[in-house]
C-alpha cells in the first residue's frame, strides 16, 4: 500500500514537470508572438512510422549516455566527461573496425571492447586525478572533454580518408555492420540492431547497482561517504571503479550510430550526446526504467521538433528550452515529493510510537 502510494508520487513528479515545462514554454512562445497552438499541435502530433524509428534509435543512444552519467551520480560523482569519453571511444572503435583486422562479428566485438576500454581509460584519468590529487572530477572531466576534442580532431586528420569535405575514418566493411530491424510497419528506415546493446546495458546497470555488493558500496558511498568509510568501504577504490564503469558505458554511446548508421567516425558524427545524457539521467532519477522514459521523451521531443520550422515557423531550438525547463522542474518536483514522502514517513513513525506507547500504558495501567 505504502509502496504503491510512494510509486504513484514518484510518477507524479515527472508528469508534473513536463506539464510545467509545457506551461512555461507556452509563456515563452506567447511572449515571442509565436503560434502556440501550432507548436504544440506539431510536437504532440502522432509521430509517423519513420519518426518512431528515429525516436527509438536516438532514444537508445541517449539512454546509454544517461546510464554512463547515472553510474557516477549514484555515488555522488559528476562525470561531465561522458561527452569526451564517448567521442574518443567512438573514434577509436571506428578506426579499429575500419581496419578490419579480424573478420565479421569478431571485428564488432573487438571494436566494442576498444570503445569500452578507451572510454574507461579516459574517464579513469579523472578518477586517478581525484583519488591521488584530490582534483574535482567536474573540473578534470571538463578539461578532458576539451582535450578529447583536440585529440580526436588531430587523430582523425592523421587517419582520415582524403578527398572530401567531411573527413572520416575508413568505413567499416559491410560484413561488420550491424543490420537494422524493420520492426515498425510502414517505415523505410530501420531500428538499430544495437538497440539491444542499450537494453543490455540497462539490465547490467540495474543488477550491478541494486543486487551486487559492489553496487551497494557504490550507493552507500554516494549516500554518505563518511558512513561508507566507517563501514569499511575503500572509497578511493570506489571512485576509481565508478569512473571506469561510467567511462566504459560512455564508450558504448557511439556504437549504435557507428555500426547502424554512419559506419565511420567523421566530423559530422553526432556531438553533444554526453551533455544530453546528464539531463536524461536527472530526468530519469538515475533509475534504469526512469532513464528509459526520459531518453524516449527527449528523443520524442527532438524528433517532433524537427517539423516545427516547417509547420509553425518556430525554431526547433524552442524544444531545447522545453527540455531544460523539464529537467529543472523535475529536479524541483522530485525534491518536493521527497520531502512529502519524508513527512509522511515521519507521521507513520510517530503514529507507530503513539500506538506502542498507548499499548504500554494499557498494560501497565
Amino acid at each position, binding site marked *: 500500500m505504502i509502496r504503491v502510494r510512494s510509486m504513484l508520487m514518484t510518477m507524479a513528479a515527472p508528469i508534473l514537470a513536463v506539464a510545467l515545462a509545457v506551461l512555461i514554454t507556452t509563456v515563452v512562445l506567447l511572449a515571442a508572438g509565436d503560434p502556440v497552438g501550432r507548436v504544440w499541435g506539431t510536437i504532440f502530433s502522432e509521430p509517423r512510422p*519513420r*519518426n518512431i524509428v*528515429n525516436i527509438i*534509435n*536516438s532514444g537508445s*543512444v541517449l539512454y546509454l549516455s544517461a546510464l554512463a552519467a547515472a553510474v557516477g551520480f549514484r555515488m555522488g560523482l559528476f562525470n561531465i566527461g561522458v561527452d569526451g569519453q564517448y*567521442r574518443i571511444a567512438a573514434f577509436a572503435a571506428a578506426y579499429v573496425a575500419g581496419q578490419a583486422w579480424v573478420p565479421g562479428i569478431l571485428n564488432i566485438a573487438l571494436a566494442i571492447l576498444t570503445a569500452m576500454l578507451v572510454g574507461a581509460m579516459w574517464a579513469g584519468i579523472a578518477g586517478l586525478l581525484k583519488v591521488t590529487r584530490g582534483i574535482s572530477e567536474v573540473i578534470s572531466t571538463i578539461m578532458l572533454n576539451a582535450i578529447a*576534442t*583536440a585529440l*580526436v*580532431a*588531430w587523430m*582523425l*586528420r592523421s587517419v*582520415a580518408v*582524403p*578527398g*572530401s*569535405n*567531411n*573527413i572520416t575514418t575508413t568505413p567499416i566493411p559491410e560484413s561488420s555492420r550491424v543490420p537494422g530491424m524493420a520492426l515498425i510497419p510502414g517505415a*523505410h*528506415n530501420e531500428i538499430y540492431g544495437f538497440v539491444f546493446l542499450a537494453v543490455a546495458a540497462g539490465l547490467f546497470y540495474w543488477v550491478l547497482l541494486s543486487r551486487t555488493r559492489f553496487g551497494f558500496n557504490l550507493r552507500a558511498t554516494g549516500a554518505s561517504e563518511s558512513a561508507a568509510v566507517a563501514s569499511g568501504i575503500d572509497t578511493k577504490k570506489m571512485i576509481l571503479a565508478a569512473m571506469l564503469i561510467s567511462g566504459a558505458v560512455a564508450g558504448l554511446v557511439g556504437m549504435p*550510430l557507428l555500426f547502424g*548508421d*554512419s559506419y565511420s567516425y567523421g*566530423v*559530422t*558524427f*553526432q*556531438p*553533444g*550526446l554526453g*551533455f*544530453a545524457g546528464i539531463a536524461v539521467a536527472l530526468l530519469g532519477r538515475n533509475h534504469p526504467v526512469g532513464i528509459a522514459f526520459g531518453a524516449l521523451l527527449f528523443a520524442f521531443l*527532438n*524528433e517532433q*521538433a*524537427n*517539423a516545427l*520550422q*516547417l509547420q509553425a515557423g518556430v*525554431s*526547433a*531550438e524552442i524544444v*531545447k528550452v522545453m527540455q531544460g525547463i523539464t529537467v529543472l522542474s523535475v529536479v524541483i518536483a522530485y525534491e518536493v515529493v521527497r520531502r512529502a514522502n519524508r513527512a509522511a514517513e515521519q507521521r507513520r513513525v510517530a503514529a507507530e510510537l503513539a500506538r506502542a506507547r498507548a499499548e504500554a500504558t494499557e498494560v501497565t495501567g
Partner: protein
Amino acid sequence: MRRSAKIMIAGMAASLVLAGCGTDDPDGPDTDPGTDPGTSEVKVGLAYDVGGRGDQSFNDAAAAGLDRAIADFGVDSTESSAIDGEPESAREERLIQLADAGFNPVIGVGFAYAGAVAKVAPQFPDTQFGLIDSTDAMGDNIANLVFPEHEGSFLVGAAAALKSETGKIGFIGGVNVPLIAKFEAGYAAGALAVNPDIEIESTYLTQPPDFSGFGDPAKGRTAAEGQFDAGADVVYHAAGGSGLGVFQAADTAGGLAIGVDSDQYHTVPSELQDVILTSMLKQVDVAVYDYIKSFIDGSPLSGEVVFGLEAGGVDYSTSGGLVDDIADQLDEFKRQIIAGEITVPDSM
C-alpha cells in the same frame, strides 16, 4: 580536387554579382536577371546548417541567393535549419519533410548534408536536390554545387603578400576541417608565389565537432591579436561570424584583414571598413540562385557544378580601393590559374 565531369558555368553567375559590390570581372550578362517577378509554381526548400539564416556567414549567403530568386521569380520557399548536436537522422528527416511537402528543388546548405542527401534523394526521384560544398552524394537528381576556394584564396594570399611590409602574414580558420584547410592552402600558395620567403602564421579557432569557431568573434579577435603581436600585418580569416573579431583586432593593431565569402567591406560596421584589404568571394548566393534558376528554366543542374574563378564563383573583391594598385598583378594570377598555368594546391 576531383577532376570528374563537371559543368563550368561561365558568365551566368558573374552577371548576378551585386552591382556596387564591384568585381573586376564584368564579363557582361548572359542572362537577363530581370525575369518577371510574378508568381511561380516552384517551391524551394532550403535546409541550413547549424546557425541558419542570420549567421552573418555561410548560411546567410545561401539565404541571400534564395531571397534574390524570390524577388526575381516569385518562387515559394520554406527554410529550416539544423540545431546543434542533432543526429544524422534529423538532417534526413528535414529533407524528407521538405520533399514530402512538395518542395522542389530542395537545397542542403553545407557538406554536413551529404549523408542525408545520399539517403533521401533516391527516395524522392522526382525531387531535385542541391548540395553545397560536397561531392560525397552523387546522383541523377543531385547537384553538387562546389567552389574552388583554394583558387580564390590564392588571389587574396597574393594580395596579402604584396601588401605586407613585415614579411609576415596570418591565416585564421574557423574550424579545423578540410574545407577550411582548402582556404589556407590556396592562401599560402598565393603568398609564396609573390614572396617565397614570406612567413605565414596559421590558427584554427576550434576543432570539430566544436563548430563554435564559425560564430565566436571573441575567439577570432584573440587569435588575430596574437598574430598581429607576432608581427603579422595582414590576416585572412575563413571563420564566418568570428571574422568580426579579426577585423577589430586589425583595427586596434593598425593592420589589414581579408574577409571571406561575401564582400565584407559592405557587411562590417563602417568604422572597420578601412582595415579590409579585400575579401575572398565565395558566391554561395550565386550558386543557390543559379541552381533555382536552372530548375525554373526546365534544365536543373545535376552532377558536380563548379563555381570557379572564370565564372566569378570565387574571386577577390575591390571595394575600398586598397587593392587598386595591385589589381593588375592579381588579375594576371587569375588568368594564369584559369589557363591552367598555375595549379593551386587544395590541401596543406
